């Protein structure tokens, strides 16, 4: 639902998704739905060891398997260190990865790759590659990684950008503001919360996949399920020593990403196999490979210390992070930084702050970007600490937030101190409807009636909890998006954007933004996106950027096209531009009432007078990153005998500015909350002592089904972001930050036990009950 909607033209309308009918009909629009004649199957040989040196690799027998066309390993490709993180330039993640290495660093690491005529032949060949390993002691926890004398995971001399390879530290930050230690010590009320998040996986239903082939001019085409086509092009060119101009990357429809496809994983392998065989090569991860060898959320322990006076005014806030980046440091620094940069500004009343932490290597699967991007981990600890502080003060948790949260017109030093792997930029929050989110969410859940009641029904005890969050809209000073808008001879429009729709609906939203400016129905705007040959640059779909950054680029292009349309009309009608208005597909003179249709204008410009293509290309960089805000409320039932937690209701009230497409925005919020509930209740990758993941599939790694979650109530609370396209901010990530702390806090309300280690499984709930003396 949306609270009060402001009717405009195309903006604010839940129009039909531009790609909706094709998707609803199962048209062949995804990466692997393309059959090219002569396509080979590419497969990867995974490491069976968590940490080992490759002594010998012998492919002679494998090469004799009928149908095998190429086998690649460290001896057959150039060694060029890179990062798989699909980020802007300069890349903030360490160059600690090569296409194939002489050393493996986790169970599932890439040893070799095969291209064969059939899947069976490829599998058979993998089984016949003989590898002799020298097994090394493995590091299976961040604590062990930091222990003196721990095995060094990245001892290769050509790695670049690692903070301290000797000590297995991929990245570290320490950002003090004021004197947190002294002020904490002097604070009348202090609380501390240390919260842990385990390995969890994005679980997009479409596995990672790519087809590499050559076009008629012999250029390499990568049809990939990616969030970052332009970064793929740049990175693959560098790794394989190709001219980027000889590479085209196309992103068709993609079956979910959530950050896991902001990584360049399969593309260079498929490209190398295609180059080696001169044949098209398709590669797709199995579900097991997605779990083990794509990317995961960074497991973390986040410790928050709060100091406040007796009224609940925060005085000091210390946040310390220990992040496990796994075997490679992709996104290690930036996810770590975002734990603080996306959370600490929320409570800007605390003047003394410190944010410090490390991201360390282990011999476990590789963590990377995952929706929330560190903020999810940070909010778990911060909002549990805030709940504990409210309890300590005897204050309503909502009231504690109201007294401390940032408001429109205010700032936080953190915006300037912590950026994306470097310093940030100062920023004032211009729109904030968090007070309304807090109030409306509380009304919906029935906070006043339910809080602290501990209503029981047999073994079940009920409780309510809440949490707040903010996020950002794009990366300040880094993100850039461009859009090209053309008017055709029939007056319809063609919008070309590098932006990457991941199922988020951004193609539709960007069409709406253009349609609103030009006063046309959305179906008059044809959108073509995410093709490095045919669409202008865009950094890609991550950091909640597309609506805000790409949307602003589209709006600028549309403004330019609008002015060109009015010029043509003014000439045709013999009027001054100042007297013309553009609405409902017509240009009309306010003075004389004379009018022209857009079709007339398109025809005239194309064929009749002063012939030219009406078109504009515009760019937008992100001088600031306006945060969306949200308040989350949930009601849980806790079975005191078994420790089972049921989420009975979940309410998420979010301020994303003006929702361009309210139904899509609700869908983003609902889906993010669903993933967050999964994090809170059931999602965790388990590892054997060998470092092997033992639940790499949906049977054992449980993601929520429709029966596991309640009806999620998503409420859009409008504000107007003055720098946003038509007032919009982001919505895609924020929802995932709420469920962990809100559910933990609701469990506390129900049974008085603090859950600080996710997921809140029955065993952990019972242990927490016993620890609290309530079991």
């Amino acid at each position, binding site marked *: 639902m949306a609270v009060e909607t402001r009717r405009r033209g195309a903006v604010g309308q*839940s129009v*039909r*998704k531009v*790609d*909706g*009918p*094709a*998707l*609803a*009909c*199962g*048209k*062949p*629009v*995804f990466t*692997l*739905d393309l*059959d090219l004649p002569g396509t080979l199957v590419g497969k990867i040989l995974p490491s069976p060891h968590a940490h080992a040196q490759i002594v010998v690799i012998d492919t002679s027998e494998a090469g004799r398997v009928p149908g095998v066309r190429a086998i690649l390993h460290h001896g057959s490709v150039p060694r060029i260190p890179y990062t798989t993180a699909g980020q802007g330039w300069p890349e903030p993640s360490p160059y600690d990865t090569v296409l194939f290495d002489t050393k493996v660093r986790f169970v599932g690491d890439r040893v070799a790759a095969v291209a064969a005529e059939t899947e069976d032949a490829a599998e058979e060949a993998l089984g016949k590659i003989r590898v002799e390993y020298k097994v090394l002691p493995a590091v299976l926890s961040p604590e062990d990684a930091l222990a003196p004398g721990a095995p060094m995971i990245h001892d290769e001399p050509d790695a670049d950008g690692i903070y301290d390879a000797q000590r297995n530290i991929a990245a570290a930050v320490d950002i003090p503001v004021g004197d947190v230690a002294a002020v904490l010590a002097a604070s009348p009320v202090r609380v501390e919360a240390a919260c842990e998040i385990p390995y969890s996986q*994005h*679980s*997009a*239903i*479409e*596995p990672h996949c790519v087809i590499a082939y050559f076009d008629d001019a012999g250029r390499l085409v990568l049809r990939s399920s990616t969030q970052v086509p332009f970064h793929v092009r740049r990175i693959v060119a560098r790794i394989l020593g190709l001219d980027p101009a000889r590479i085209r990357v196309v992103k068709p*429809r*993609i*079956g*979910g990403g*959530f950050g896991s496809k902001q990584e360049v994983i399969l593309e260079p392998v498929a490209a190398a196999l295609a180059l080696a065989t001169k044949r098209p090569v398709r590669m*797709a991860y*199995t*579900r097991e490979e997605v779990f083990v060898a794509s990317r995961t959320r960074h497991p973390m322990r986040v410790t928050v210390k709060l100091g406040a006076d007796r009224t609940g005014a925060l005085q000091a806030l210390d946040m310390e992070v220990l992040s496990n980046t796994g075997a490679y440091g992709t996104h290690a620094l930036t996810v770590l930084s975002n734990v603080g940069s996306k959370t600490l500004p929320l409570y800007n009343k605390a003047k003394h702050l410190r944010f410090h932490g490390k991201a360390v290597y282990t011999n476990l699967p590789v963590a990377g970007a995952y929706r929330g991007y560190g903020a999810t981990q940070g909010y778990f600890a911060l909002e549990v600490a805030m709940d504990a502080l409210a309890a300590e003060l005897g204050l309503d948790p909502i009231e504690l937030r109201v007294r401390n949260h940032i408001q429109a017109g205010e700032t936080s030093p953190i915006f300037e101190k912590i950026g994306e792997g470097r310093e940030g930029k100062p920023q004032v929050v211009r729109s904030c409807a968090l007070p309304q989110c807090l109030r409306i969410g509380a009304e919906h859940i029935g906070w006043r009636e339910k809080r602290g009641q501990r209503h029981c029904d047999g073994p079940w005890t009920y409780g309510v909890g809440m949490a707040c969050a903010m996020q950002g809209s794009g990366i300040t000073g880094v993100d850039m998006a461009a859009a090209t808008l053309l008017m055709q001879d029939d007056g319809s429009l063609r919008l070309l954007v590098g932006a990457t729709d*991941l*199922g*988020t*609906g951004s193609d539709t939203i960007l069409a709406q933004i253009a349609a609103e400016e030009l006063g046309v129905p959305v179906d008059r705007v044809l959108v073509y996106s995410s093709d490095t040959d045919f669409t202008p640059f865009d950094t890609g779909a991550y950091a909640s950027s597309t609506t805000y950054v790409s949307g602003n680029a589209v709006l600028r292009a549309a403004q330019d096209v609008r002015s060109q349309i009015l010029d043509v009309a003014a000439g045709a009608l013999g009027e001054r531009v100042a007297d013309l208005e553009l609405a409902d597909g017509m240009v009309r003179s306010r003075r004389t009432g004379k009018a022209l249709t857009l079709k007339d204008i398109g025809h005239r410009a194309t064929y009749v007078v002063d012939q030219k293509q009406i078109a504009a290309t515009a760019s937008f960089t992100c001088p600031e990153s306006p945060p969306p805000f949200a308040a989350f409320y949930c009601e849980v039932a806790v079975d005191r005998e078994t420790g089972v937690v049921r989420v009975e209701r979940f309410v998420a009230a979010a301020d994303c500015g003006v929702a361009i497409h309210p*139904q*899509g925005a*609700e*869908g983003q*919020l*609902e*889906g993010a*909350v*669903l*993933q967050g509930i999964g994090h809170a209740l059931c999602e965790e990758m388990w590892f054997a002592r060998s470092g092997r993941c033992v639940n790499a*599939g*949906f*049977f054992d790694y449980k*993601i929520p*089904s*429709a*029966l596991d*979650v309640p*009806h*999620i109530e*998503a409420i859009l609370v409008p504000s107007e972001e003055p720098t946003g396209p038509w007032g919009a901010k982001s919505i895609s990530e924020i929802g995932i930050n709420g469920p962990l702390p809100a559910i933990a806090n609701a469990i506390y309300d129900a049974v008085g036990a603090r859950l600080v280690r996710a997921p809140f499984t029955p065993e952990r709930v019972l242990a927490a009950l016993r620890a609290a003396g309530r079991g």
Partner: protein
Amino acid sequence: MRVHVELNGVPQYLDVAPGEPLLSLLRRVGLKSVKEGCDAGDCGACTVLVDGRAVRSCLMVAPQVQGRKVTTLEGLGTVDDLHPLQEAFLETGAVQCGFCTPGMILVAHELLSRNGDPTADEVRAAISGNLCRCTGYVKIVDAILLAARWKREGKWR
């Protein structure tokens, strides 16, 4: 070997390998709405209807459909002539990335053929074997309830 099957209403002979999964056969003959998400029967993305019942095509071998009717999403509606379930999924915003959509719609189709007036809980139970990672299931449930209402109102063909 060769099987005789009625595929989306068209009787035909298809050459199959004895152990070939039904999923692979259907994609091989161009029915790309049938998606592979896990190859283990856990996610439901490969759901098709065999004699009107929703099955996971990754768990069946192709010869099992000998003499039977197989329906994939291609057999329901087209972009110009949507099936009411497809219309309802679009109307309610139940299609996000669209990868689970074919399976969801086919499971919904089976549910509504058995139960024309399901409750939200019954819809949730029916789709509980089909995983979606984009939505919170809210709009998928809404879509199926809307399609059920249209069916009761006689709006289905």
